[in-house]
């Protein structure tokens, strides 16, 4: 009895149990932290022999299932800020288009890969370290909570000065619509350059720059990721023919279950516990990337077509 399945678009056979297990692991993270998990899943799929282009496209397809499953759980719990999510989504789509043009320009200038990798390491390392130390300080109770006693920060004054303020009831904040739109554009640009969905950038942006409560951040991030990945899946299938539905189906069987477990666990953990766990995962990925850059690879060529 063998447990292999043939993936018709990827053109390879892979162990079914392994695929469901990988989906479960990444889906769990998705439900727990509100990230799509593409930054983790795509390299894992390439490692087990899936062509890079098929891995990235099929992963987007499975993220659609995981994020809709996770978002449904969060929506039931009332922790999705749809108004904020739609604004971030519009900004993200616009930023993604700018990012794609930027990548074209970088490729024409040469060394695009260097810029992509550097952006990856700096972003992951910066976000991971900040989240880690901030959450650690908060857990130890040493962090000063709020700045009500002192002068408002320059960032707070800037946010306050922006026009077109709207109340975001679910997030319990009142902000200018320019904030989620502008930050959405920024995340969209970075996500396009790095070739990822952007969840792990969006989550810290919502927490630290939009000052949204952590439990609303996770649900809202999943809402935004859902629509981003639907768009990516359809575009990849139409333009590059690289979506392997059999691969996505097996991954999503694991990921939708993992996402539910993750979403449930996320409501039981404190915000700082969630943040520090995510920070650790982001830092582990950063260290892995750094090692990949510093250690000589076994084979000095790779198939073209990945990120």
């Amino acid at each position, binding site marked *: 009895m063998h447990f*292999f*399945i*043939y993936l*018709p*678009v990827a*053109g*390879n*056979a892979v162990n079914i149990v392994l695929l469901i297990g990988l989906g479960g692991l990444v889906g769990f993270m998705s439900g727990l932290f509100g990230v799509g998990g593409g930054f983790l899943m795509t390299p894992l799929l390439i490692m087990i*022999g899936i062509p890079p282009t098929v891995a990235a496209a099929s992963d987007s*397809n*499975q993220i*659609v*299932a*995981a994020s*809709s*499953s*996770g*978002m*449904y*759980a969060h929506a039931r*719990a*009332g*922790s999705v800020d749809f108004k904020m999510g739609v604004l971030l989504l519009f900004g993200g789509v616009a930023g993604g288009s700018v990012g794609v043009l930027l990548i074209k320009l970088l490729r024409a200038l040469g060394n695009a*890969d*260097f810029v992509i*990798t550097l952006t990856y390491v700096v972003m992951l390392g910066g976000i991971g370290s900040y989240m880690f130390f901030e959450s650690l300080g908060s857990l130890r109770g040493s962090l000063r909570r709020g700045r009500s006693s002192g002068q408002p920060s320059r960032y707070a004054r800037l946010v306050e000065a922006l026009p077109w303020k709207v109340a975001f009831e679910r997030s319990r904040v009142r902000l200018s619509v320019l904030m989620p739109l502008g930050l959405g554009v920024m995340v969209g640009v970075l996500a396009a350059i790095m070739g990822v969905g952007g969840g792990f950038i969006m989550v810290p942006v919502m927490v630290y720059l939009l000052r949204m409560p952590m*439990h609303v951040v996770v649900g809202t991030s999943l809402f935004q990721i*859902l629509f981003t990945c*639907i768009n990516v*899946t*359809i575009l990849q*299938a*139409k333009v590059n*023919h690289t*979506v*392997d*539905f*059999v691969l*996505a*189906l097996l991954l*999503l069987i694991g990921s*939708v279950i993992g*996402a*539910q477990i993750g*979403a*449930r666990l996320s*409501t039981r953990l404190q915000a700082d516990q969630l943040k520090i766990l995510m920070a650790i995962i982001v830092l582990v990925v950063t260290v892995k990337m750094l090692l*990949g850059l*510093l*250690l*000589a690879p*076994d*084979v*000095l*060529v*790779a*198939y*073209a*077509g*990945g990120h």
Partner: protein
Amino acid sequence: MAQRIAALGFCMCCCLAAQPVAAALDTGAVRVEPSEIRAGIFYHGAQVTVTFEAPADSRIAVVLEGARKTVELKEKKKLFGLLWMNAGEIRFENLPTVYKVATGAPRGGGAVEQAELLMAVGYPALEQDAGIAEETDQNDFREYLKLKEREHLYGIMPDRISVSEEGEGSIRGEVVFELPAKASAGRYSIRLFAVENDRVHQLAEGGVTVRQVGAAAFISHLAENHGLAYGVLAAVFAVLIGLLTGVVFGLGGKGGH
């Protein structure tokens, strides 16, 4: 009596050697089992058994080869003396998707012939076909070979041909090739070569076809020819499965916070 038989044998060998090797065997001498591999949804690679007839004194090689294509690769280099990164693109023309060479010598010996055979049908032949001459390209080509061997798509298998039956002046050989699932659908040629008079001759040719069937073929066709509809269906299915799981888990649980 024994001397007469030996003399007759010698004469027969001389006669055989005087003729072109291809003429000694008909092209149907290579038999491939199976001749068609049906890649369904549970396909995970296949074994291809090649049986053939060849001259008894020759060193022989059987080559399994996939379709020839242009290969595009990323080259990894050390930048700023520190970071290993993709630092260039490489393009090789006219290289097969799969290339496996099994060799054998029915009566042993023949290290020189083995080297000749591998020069003619081994990796040096591919290097020549791809028009690689510069030293930097040769280094990249060696890395490409390493990449393909890791995927089990390329391989040189010395002395892997077993002689299953020996007749007078000719042998019956057999070799089993592992064709991994990663080998794409299409036709694979199987050619038999032998060294004679310091020259490598192709003796016979056969082939095996890998064909996607059933659900695998349907999905592959849909993805390739109806990309937009396939993408929309894939996204809709994923949303439905995600929501359905959400509902099922929601019914069983307390529903969030």
